[in-house]
Each structure stands twice: as C-alpha cells, then as structure tokens.
C-alpha cells in the first residue's frame, strides 16, 4: 500500500519545488514509513516515463543532483489527485464499517 503512494507523493513534493535525492528521501520518510532503498527505483521510473527531469548543481566541491517535475509530470499528478479523490469515498466508507451514507453528509 505504502509503495503504491510513492509516485504521487514524489510528484506532489516536486510540484512545489525541486529537490535533491537525499532531501526527497527525508521528506518522503517524514510522511510515509518506508525503507530508504525504495525511493531510487521510483525516481528512475518517473524519469524514464518523462515525468521528472534532473540537473546538477555544484555543492561543497561535488555535484548535487536535483529532480524537477516536467509538464507531463504535473498532468500525471493531477490524474493522481482525481484518483485519490475517488478513493477518499472508499476510505471513508471503510472507516464507517460499510454504511454507504458518506455522500449524504
């Protein structure tokens, strides 16, 4: 379940500003309890799909790689948001024990 939310989470974080790998990992870890090794494949996949791009900035004598969301990535994030909105009803229903009165409130 947690792994499934990594992609939208990374897109959501980067939507508000670029971040480097460790910073992203720390921010994700602050939200979801997940192994530190789980993020790298997600970043690679998002890059392969053209949802993220990278650039490097010199920092303390070495290069720091920043991740930036692409326009395509923003569209994908919006799709995720719509999907999650649909899921909210399901989550509320599960919490209430199956009584389908969520929409009537």
């Amino acid at each position, binding site marked *: 379940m947690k*792994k499934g939310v990594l992609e939208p989470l990374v897109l959501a974080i980067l939507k508000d500003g670029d971040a480097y*790998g460790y*910073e992203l990992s720390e921010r994700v870890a602050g939200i979801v309890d997940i*192994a530190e090794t789980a993020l*790298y494949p997600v970043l690679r996949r998002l890059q392969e*799909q053209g949802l993220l791009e990278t650039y490097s900035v010199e920092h303390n004598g070495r290069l720091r790689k920043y991740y930036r969301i692409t326009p395509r990535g923003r569209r994908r994030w919006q799709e995720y948001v719509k*999907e999650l909105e649909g899921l909210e009803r399901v989550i509320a229903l599960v919490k209430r024990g199956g009584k389908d009165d969520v929409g009537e409130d």
Partner: protein
Amino acid sequence: MSEKIDGLMASLRAGLQDLPEEAVRPALDYWAEYIAEALEAGRSEEEILSRLSTEEIVAAIRAEASLVRAESRPGPLRLTGAGRSVLRGLGGTAGRASLLAAASVPYTLAIGLYLCAVGSFLAVAASAGLTVYEITRMSASSAWERIGAAGLGLFAAGLLGALGLLLWLAANAITRVTLRVLRRGVHRSDAKEPPPAAPRSPGRWKARRAAFIVLLALGLLGLGLTIPARLPWSYVSIWNSMRPAALTERSWSFDPAEIRTLDLQTLSSGITVRVGSSDLITLRYEEPRWMSGAALRRGDGVSFSETSSGRLPYLEWVARHEGVTTLVMEVPEGYVPREVTLRSGSGPIEVAMPAETIRVETENGRLGFAASRYAYGVRAMTRNGTISVSGTVLDRTTYEAAGGPLEAELRSVDGKVEIR
C-alpha cells in the same frame, strides 16, 4: 569515504555487474551522493549503513533496469531477458511469481504472433523471389502476362507485408501491456492503475502507418496489373477444371510400320489411347493457350510432351488439378507396339489398346485400363488412391494378375485405378 562505505559501493557494483553501464552508473552515483548527503546532514556511518541493504538495492535496481531495457527494445527481444531479470528481482515472493506465471500466457501469444509476422515477412521475400523466377521463365512475347505475373507477386508481397506488419504491431502491443503489468506487479503490487505509458515517438507511429499504407497500395497496384492480364480468371478456370473457351486443335499422324515405342506425357491434360479406324497412328491434342504440346519422331519412337507455353506463371502448381483438355491417340487395329509409356501429372488416363509392355503413371488423375479385352498381365499400385477390378474396389493398394504375353504396370499416387 570510509572502508565500510567503499565496501557497500563495491558490493553494489558487483551485484549489478551484468547490467549495462547506463543502468549501473546512475545507481552508483545516486547512492554515493545519498551517503555523502546523509553524512553531511550529521548522520553517522553506522546508522546509514544499518538502514541500507545491499541486497534490497540490487534487487530493486535489477528489476527496474530489466523492465526499462525490455520496454525500450524492439520486437521479440524485449521478451527474452525481461522474464529472467524480473524473476531475479522478485526475490522469490510467491504472489509476484504467480504474476509472472500469469504473464506467460500473453507472452506465449506474443511470441506466436511474432513468429507469424516473421513467417509473413519471409513469405514476402519468397513471393518476390518466385515472381522474378517465374517471369524469367515466361515467354518473352507474352508481355501482358509478364506484367500480370509481376502484379501477382506485388499483390502477394503487399498483402503479406501488411499482414506481417499488423501481426508484429499486435505482438508489440501485447508485450508492452504485459511488461507494464509486470512492472506494476514488481513495484506496486497494490496499485489499481498501471503507470502511464512510456512516451512513444510520434515519428515512429507515422512511419508504421505510412509503411502499412504503402504495402496495401502496392498490393492493390499488383491486383490492378494482374486483372487486365486475365491471370486470376485463368487460375480459377484451371482450378475448377473448366473447359477453356479457346482451344487450338493440333494433330499428328505416323506410319505404324515405322513406330515401335510411344511415350506420351502431359501436365494436366487427360490421355486417351485406343484402337481407331485409321491405318495410321494419330494424335489429336486440344491445346489451351497456357499449354504447349508437340509430338516428335525419335528413331522408331514417338514422344509427345505437354509443357507450359510460358504465358501463365505458376502453371505447374495450378495444373496439378485435374484438367479437362485431352490428348487422344488412336492406333490401327492389330497394331501392337513394343513399349508404351503414358504419364500425366493430374490428367485422367484411359487405356484401351494392346502393347507388349505398357507403363501408365499418374499423380492424382483417374486411371482406367481395359485389361480384359487384351491378354494383359497386370501389376497395379497406388499410394493413397484405390484400386478396383471389374467394378469391385479392393481393400489393398497393390494388385497383381498373371495374364498373357502383354504386360501392364499401372501406378497412381493419389487417384483411382480402375481395371476392367
């Protein structure tokens, strides 16, 4: 970096050594940067290393790299390494292994489609080669028919090429979807929606569509060239054993006193030999426009052979269907040649004459032999057909009957042998 961190990086590199550099390099860079950032943030080396499992990192990178590589490969190559690499990345999880097992069904279908597509492409090459071969064999004066033959080759090549392209694209689509499902299963087995498709090159799609249209257009052009040359109609009429509208009657006659052997061969025309009322040996042949027949005198023998006139390509293949044109040979009463040989690819053969030795062979035509009228000893055999004697069908494929001084050997591969 410390020895421990160097050790981790070395383990990572060792675990990924068989992956291409473009997959390994970014991974090693990422983890080197990650550790440097973590140290800079004040975390201790022990803490960092305790939370990084080499096996986990390697498995995740392998699974990701294999699928990315597989998706970027063209055609069936994407199938070959993907399954194996994914299995390695799965780490033996039963649920994920069952996902891979389920994926084997569309994989098998895709492989079948790829094979069919390759078959179609090979058939394109074969039809092109055959067309060139047939055209070079055709008579130079049959210009229209040669154009028609080229059209026929173009028609076959265009349609087969378009079919092959469609099959290939279908296999590609199945493979792509399967890989995407696998990818989702490996990384996010709980996700409801697959990740978005990798961006496709619009140029490639345009090229494929253009190739498909060009192939279809070539096929139609081929058809347009073939129809005026009347090739399709000729094939249909031969295949359906229809009597040709235009036949040229040809005849030859020979003095029986000078002729001791007779050798008649046809492709698909029937052969009838019988005793006639003339004092000469006569041959009458109905020549369709796509055949050519000639009787020649050789020493004390006569030979007749029917060949393609070079006006209709692929005739030998089509002419395997039983023809309706005939070659009729009549011999004088009392004439008994030393040796008679009758052969036809698919034409029916009817024999009612004496000969010291007569050999009759047909591939799939009917063979009728009037044995009782003359003192024949008969040996008959068939491979897939039937033998009947005086109207009774035998339940075996050979027959032998001793008789008088005349000898007959009758062979039919697929046709009926009727001995009367």
